[in-house]
């Protein structure tokens, strides 16, 4: 017993991904919703690193690196958008953001 099967990592990643997606659906606070997206990205990263280790190539880690950069950019823009929404409406509840529905 000195190794972990690849599929364990993949299942962990799938669990985290599904939790993130479920959180996205059921949470109402837009910051928390955004955090659920970050959780999903993290889950994907775990898959990438595990596959990278499986193939003994660096490509998966590079992908993870780019995902991190993109996540950082997304966080900056996303939180700026959330700030502007809050400034105009003083609410963080996704359900309250409904002026466009007919």
């Amino acid at each position, binding site marked *: 017993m000195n190794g972990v099967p690849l599929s364990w990592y993949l299942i962990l990643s799938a669990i985290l991904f599904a939790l993130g997606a479920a959180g996205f659906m059921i949470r109402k606070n837009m910051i928390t919703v955004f955090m659920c997206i970050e959780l999903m990205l993290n889950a994907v990263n775990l898959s990438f690193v595990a*596959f990278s280790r499986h*193939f003994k190539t660096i490509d998966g880690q590079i992908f993870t690196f780019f995902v991190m950069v993109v996540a950082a*950019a997304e966080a900056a823009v996303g939180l700026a958008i959330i700030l502007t929404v809050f400034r105009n409406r003083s609410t963080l509840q996704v359900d309250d953001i409904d002026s466009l529905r007919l």
Partner: protein
Amino acid sequence: METSFLPTAAEYLRLLPETILIVSGTILMILEGLAGPRNRKNLSPLAIAAILAAMAATVAAAGNPGPAFNNMILADGFGAFFRMVVLSAGLLAVLCSSSYLTREKADSGEYYALLLYSMTGQCLLSTANELIMVFIGLEISSIATYILAGYLRDDARNNESALKYFLLGSFATAFLLYGVAWIYGITGSTNLEEIRRTLLNPESGASPLLTGVAAALMFIGFAFKISAVPFQVWAPDVYQGAPAPVSAFMSAGPKAAAFAVMLRVYLTAFPSIGDGWQTMIWLTALGTMIVGNFAALTQSNLKRILAYSSIAHAGYVLVAVTAYSDTGTAAAMFYLAAYAFMNIGAFAVVSHFSRTGEKYVELNDLAGLAQKQPTTAALFSLFLFSLIGVPLTGGFFGKFYIFKAAIDSGLIGLTVLGLLSSAVAAFYYLRIIVVMYFHEPGDTMDTITSPAPGIQIALWTSALATLLLGVFPSFVLDYATTSAVLVR
């Protein structure tokens, strides 16, 4: 090995359009900073010049097609075609934006910089030959568009639009990325050609089940970007809330680029799972057409009508994708080009008509436009006819080629249902024309001014392109047909 990564001059040329866009975007941003808030200048001429230069560079790069930067991008005819579509959409959007921003007192270099960056992402998407470039191109395009959608940040509708677009877009990206991770896990590579080779090689042991799940996950990501059913929910809200020129751009540029990358990924990398994929697209195409057209019937807001119509049109393009043949790909390419012009034309009218603060975007506000501004009304009608698919317009040949390709591939059922739903669509487009021509003008019509020069250029260019594509389609179609073969 140590020195081989150094790119050659030809490779730089293949990246020239993107380079021009990035550099001029940065220059615009710096100019804005240097000018300061006092002596603002309208920077749209510079942006237009940059886009025209990028178009020229696209043509130049198309003369010497091939891969660049370690196969990261593949500047082939297919890529060049979509680069041109994206750049044209961007050009028209800039033309519309100039007067819109002045009107809203939000004219700034940053807006144009973001537009250029967004186009950079879409150009990269059109040529991406590696999943990593797909991902980064998609993110550049999306993140810039999120900001543009919420650009007028004191307007609650803009905020809401940006927020919805952002949250759902990122959610979709996560799915796309998960699919990419799986593809990497199955094939050990992210290069499209290599993925194709591995998947087609029976000894590689790649499980079709796994590949199917991965391709489906990636499809969720793409389906969000092209607003296909059941991932279309964001589109109406986002198009309605965003500034009109941005909505125009969003419905043409990013959508065309997303279709480009979807076609390239599925045609190049996943021929091994073609059958399952066709069934999935069949359902999506049908659902998208029906939902788009029937939902549009109940709307009274012009931007929302156009948003649902853009969903329906994505459905038509998906019919061409379902055909899964070279003619189908070519038809999709032609349709996206034609759609870009007619739809931006329609949005340009809305952008002109809605006036400061986008106060007048309801259907009834259009009443009597034909009496006040016959030219604008006539051009709007032209675009609407093209969206319906009336002969002598680009929209007609677009639909014609799509359904022809579908019949050639034996998709009779889908073709019939598609034609029926587009007959339904004619109703809500005609309703707009009826309101324009046969209703008496209300009080609101008094405040309307004649279209700004930028809008006029955009309107006439789109109209000309729509007519040209309707009268001489072969020029564009031939090019599409020759380049469609490349991605197979």
